[in-house]
Structure formats: C-alpha cells, structure tokens
C-alpha cells in the first residue's frame, strides 16, 4: 500500500505540461473552435509522441498499456491545457476495438495518433465528428464504422466541442463490443480531464486575484474571495485521490464516483473563477473562457451526475 505517484508518472505529467505550455495551446483551441483543425492536429501528434494514446492500447498493438493510472495522469494535463479534440472518445475507441481482428486493424493508428476517433453517445451527438478519421456508432445490430459524412456541426456551450450527428450507415465492425468497459475508461479519462480543467481555473484565478486591485487592495485579500478559493482547492484536492483510486481499481462505481466528483469540483471552480474575474472572465477573448465552458460540458458528457450516483448506490464503492 503506497498511494503515491512514482517518479515516472510525475515525469509524464511534467513532460506534457512543459510541451503544452510551449505549444500555444490556446491558439490551437481557438482555431479548432472555428473548424480549423491544423494546429489541433499538430498538437495531437505531439501528444501521441509522448505516448498518451498508447496508454489504453496493449503493447502488441503498438501501445504501452493498459496503464489507467498513467492515462489519468496524462489526461489531467490535457484538461489543464484545454487541449481540443475527441480525447476521451479516442480512448473509448481503443477499448471498443481491443479485440482481434479489429485490434490489428485500428489500434496501431490510434496509439500512434495518426487516427483520431469519435464515438456517438447513446441517442446523442458525437464530439468532433468533422475532425475524426474514425467515427464509431453503437447501433442496435452492433458497432458501426460510419462512412457517411457527419451531420452539420452543432455548437456546444464550449465552442471547442463541435458536436455532429453520425449515421450508422457504413461498415458493421462487430455485433458486440465491450461497451461497459469502454464507458469506464471514457469516464476515467473525462474525470481526469475535468480535474485538470479545475486545476487550471484555480491557478489562473489565484493569479488574477493577487494582482487585481479594487478599493485599493488586492481582490485576493477579501475574506469572501479567499474562502471561495479555499473551497475550490479543497474540492479539487479531494477529487484527486478518488481519480487515482478509480484508475487503480477500474471498478465502474469508483470511476463513476470520481467522474462525478471531479466534474462537480471543476464546475464549482469554474463558477468561482468566473465570479472572481468579474466581467473579463465573461468574455470569449480572455483565455479563461476556454476552461470555463469546458467545465460545464464535461459535467454531462459520458454520464450525468445522476447516472454516476445511481451506479454508486447500485454497485457500492
């Protein structure tokens, strides 16, 4: 029993953080929001080079996994930098396609980052169907590879999330895919991403209230401001062990609990960040918006709070 990240895991986080900090990720997000995927794809390739997409892919198919803890570590960083694209969905695809013969055909491309995948949510839209090279649709007769053009882009409250309807018309890949297992991995990735989003919002807000003055003093010296940020910090720091505990066990109820908790903490932090920034936080041109709107969208993606709670009550922690 030692519940600590090791040096290699911490190095993975540091590597991603340094790379994404240097890469002008906000510009890639803004391009992505307008449907210009060039910079986003370049970023994607660099993330793949670090091995992130291989963490859900076994070694025999070009990956290094499965390594759920490292995946969680990496996705915290992707969230912290608001990286755009169907990130959790590509993880979902790697799990859905993990059995031979599909594995041989698809996993190497996913691990290498040459393929970007999306998966239609049950009865809903698929994220970034216009950007993904693999568009998967769980249909009544099985998992389909959609070959029809994706529907028109519907905007999310997070402009970087471009949602499209997908037609199941195309190739039936398998009558039965491991949907439950895929959902668990997708939720784990989403939880990690949300935690990273929350951490970024907290960092930026702390920096802002230290320098912004009103009534002659830093805004961060008001007790009401301090306490809101202390609550955000506490919520995020208690979500973190749930995330890594869920990564270790991969039990669906634990993953659901982590997803719920990380997303709630991130959303509460977003509300605090928006409030403490005042009007500037409310503008699209200020970078804070890249994280603010993502916190809300992730909260309902791949499992609403109620769905997560139901799993906790049914399966137990």
């Amino acid at each position, binding site marked *: 029993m030692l519940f600590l990240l090791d040096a290699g895991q911490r190095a993975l986080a540091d590597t991603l953080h340094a790379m994404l900090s240097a890469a002008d990720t906000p510009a890639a997000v803004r391009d992505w929001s307008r449907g210009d995927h060039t910079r986003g794809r370049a970023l994607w390739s660099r993330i793949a080079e670090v091995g992130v997409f291989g963490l859900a892919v076994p070694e025999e198919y070009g990956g290094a996994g499965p390594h759920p803890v490292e995946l969680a570590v990496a996705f915290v960083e992707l969230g912290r930098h608001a990286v755009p694209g169907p990130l959790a969905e590509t993880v979902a695809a790697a799990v859905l396609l993990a059995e031979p013969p599909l594995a041989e055909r698809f996993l190497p491309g996913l691990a290498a980052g040459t393929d970007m995948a999306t998966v239609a949510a049950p009865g809903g839209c698929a994220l970034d169907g216009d950007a993904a090279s693999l568009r998967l649709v769980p249909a009544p007769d099985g998992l389909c590879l959609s070959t029809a053009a994706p529907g028109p882009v519907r905007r999310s409250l997070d402009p970087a999330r471009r949602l499209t309807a997908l037609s199941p018309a195309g190739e039936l890949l398998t009558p039965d895919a491991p949907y439950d297992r895929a959902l668990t991995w997708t939720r784990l990735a989403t939880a990690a991403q949300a935690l990273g989003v929350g951490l970024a919002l907290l960092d930026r807000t702390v920096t802002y209230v230290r320098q912004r003055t009103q009534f002659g003093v830093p805004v961060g010296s008001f007790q009401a401001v301090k306490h809101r940020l202390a609550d955000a910090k506490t919520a995020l720091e208690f979500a973190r062990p749930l995330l890594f505990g869920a990564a270790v066990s991969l039990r669906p109820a634990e993953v659901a609990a982590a997803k719920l908790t990380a997303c709630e903490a991130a959303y509460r932090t977003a509300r605090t960040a928006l409030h403490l920034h005042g009007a500037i936080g409310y503008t*699209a041109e200020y970078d804070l918006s890249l994280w603010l709107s993502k916190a809300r969208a992730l909260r309902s993606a791949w499992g*609403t*709070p109620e769905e997560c709670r139901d799993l906790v009550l049914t399966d137990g922690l």
Partner: protein
Amino acid sequence: MGGTGRKAAIVDLTHSPADEEFRAAARSWLAAHVPRTPLPSLETEEGFAAHRAWEAELAADRWSVVSWPERFGGRDAGLLRWLVFEEEYWAAGAPGRVGQNGVSLLAPTLFAYGTEEQRARVLPPMATGEVVWAQAWSEPEAGSDLAALTSRAVRADGGWRLRGQKTWSSRAAFADRAFGLFRSDPDAPRRHEGLTYLMFDLRAPGVTVRPIGRLDGKPAFAELFLDEVFVPDEDVIGAPGQGWRIAMSTAGDERGLTLRSPGRFLASAARLRELWRARGAPEHARARVADALIAARAYQLFTYAAASRVLDGARLGPESSMNKVFWSELDLALHETALDLLGADGELADGAWSEGYVFSLAGPVYAGTNEIQRDIVAERLLGLPKGRR
C-alpha cells in the same frame, strides 16, 4: 384586543378591477402580437434590429413604457400596474427588451434629475426603440469600485470634451447613444466628487466602439475609446460634479425594483416546470424545481411588499441589496436546473435555455457583485462593523 376584531383590510393581494382590466388588455394585446417564433438573439446585428422593430410595435400601441407619463408614450401606470404588465409580458413569452438600459437606468435618472427639455427630447425616441441606449459605467481599473473612474470630461466651449476608455458597455456594439460618469474635476478632494453624468452619441467623432464577445462569442458588450468627444451642455444630467450622487440613485434602481421584475422569474419557473414534466418528471430534479417555483413566488410577493411600502410613502434603501442577491441566484439556479434536466443535450448552445444560462452567469457579477451586496446587507441592514473585508 387591538385591531384584530375585523377582517384584514390592508394585507390584500387582490388587484383592483381597474388593474385587472389593464391586465386583460395587456394579455390580449400580447396574445395577438408576440412573435410565434423567438426572435434571433438580441446580441447579434440581425437580432438587435428585430428587437428594435418589436419595440416600435409595442410603442405603437403604447405598451413599451407603460409606467411613463402619457406625453412620453406611456400609460401612467403605477408601480403595481407595471408589475402586472411585467407578469403578463413574460408569461406571454415576449422578446427580451433591447431598450432596457435606457428605460430602466437612464429614464429614471432623467425623471429625477433631468430637465423637461431633456425628457421631451430623449424619452420619446427611447420609447419607440428609435434610439437605443448603452450604459458606459465601468472602466478597466474601475469595476465594482466605480469611484475609481478616470475617464475625463474637460470643459469646452458650450459643453465638454470626453477622453478615456469605458468597458463592459452592454448593448454598445449596436446601440445609438450611451450615458455614464466622467471625471470633470480631478482635483476634487475625495474621489467620489468631481464626477459628471453625461449622455453622448456612440457615432460622434472621436468614439471608437470595439465589440467584446461574451462567453458564447456574441458581442453583448463593447469597449469604448473616447478621443476628445464633444458633448453639448444640454446633454449633462444634473449639475456638473454631482454625477456620483445621481448615479447612485440610479444604481439603487438597477438593483431594486425595476431591473428584474418578478414576472420574468415566474415565467421562467413555469417553463422549468413544463420542461421537468416533459422530461418525465425525474425525481432527482423534483426538489430543485419546487424550490424554483417557490423562490419565484417569494420574489413576487417580496416585490409586492416593497412596492406597497413605496406606495405607502417609504423609500427603498439597502434592502434592494437583498433583491439583487436573491434574483441573481434564483436566475442561475433556474437555468442550471434546466440544463441538468436536458442531460447531455444541456451543453448544446442552440437550446432554448442556453442563452439564458449564459446571461444568468453574469447576474452575480454585474450591477454590484453579490459580495458587495452582502457587505451592504450586513453593514446597513444588520449594523455590523464597516470597513474590513
């Protein structure tokens, strides 16, 4: 025993027959005129024009500014009748009000501090939507702390010249004119003094309007760069140097009765209940839907009580700060509950609730942050010590 040996005569929530007649007239006009499909977003050029046309339609039958005197386009409706109108207006699903900055902030100021000439010149085109007003309060270094304003009004022949920068000017991307405070006497001993309340043209020489997109990208406000913008004396409201006092009375109105009428929240709460039912009345949202209905009703009755005190001769003071906190939190709770009811579809930006959600997010911040309002409640209503925050 004193006063209880008779039917309650004054605690009376029944509207008079005349007020009910007014309600019926409003309702039937709205039923005939409210657009069947929602207008495009007010925060787009197309939507702005459509909302301006709607104001003209309202004004043609004198429904745009019911509380104003008839000579300016109103119906002399008192406070209670205004509340009745608002209940009907929002219950009918009528469009948002593009003229709100002018009608609820500038007009009360003109009624209180303007000249009759200013009223006659400014109010009628405001009532028809021909002139839409933006507010120009905030500056980059003066948000909650309005007394820190630095934009200047410098005396000139027959008027003033404005220079400086304003920001978060709502509606300014598409509006015609703006009003705000400018520092006319930088040597005044205290920073609340030496400010002057002015109206100016957004298309005057020297004005540059840079629209700012809010979270959803729509240009809901703008930065204003002012480079020697001439304002004639006739566009000064009240005496030069008295701007702070005048603006504070307007700010009271903004927080108080006239910014957010109960009708809005009653209508939103009713829509929320419909949404909840349409989604199969899920148990997880039951308490939040009930609480929203109750809070909207509480806000309505609180407002009726406040209006009754005004009619009884009282002035509303710091209790407006309770209003501001209450409605802004209610508005947010209503919209968050709605998005939660929509599940994964809640993130779609084109949904019926999403624009309102984005708007509601700003509620706790603008018109004085809720922290400032809580400080006011604590210090001025409860008498707690001032000054340490």
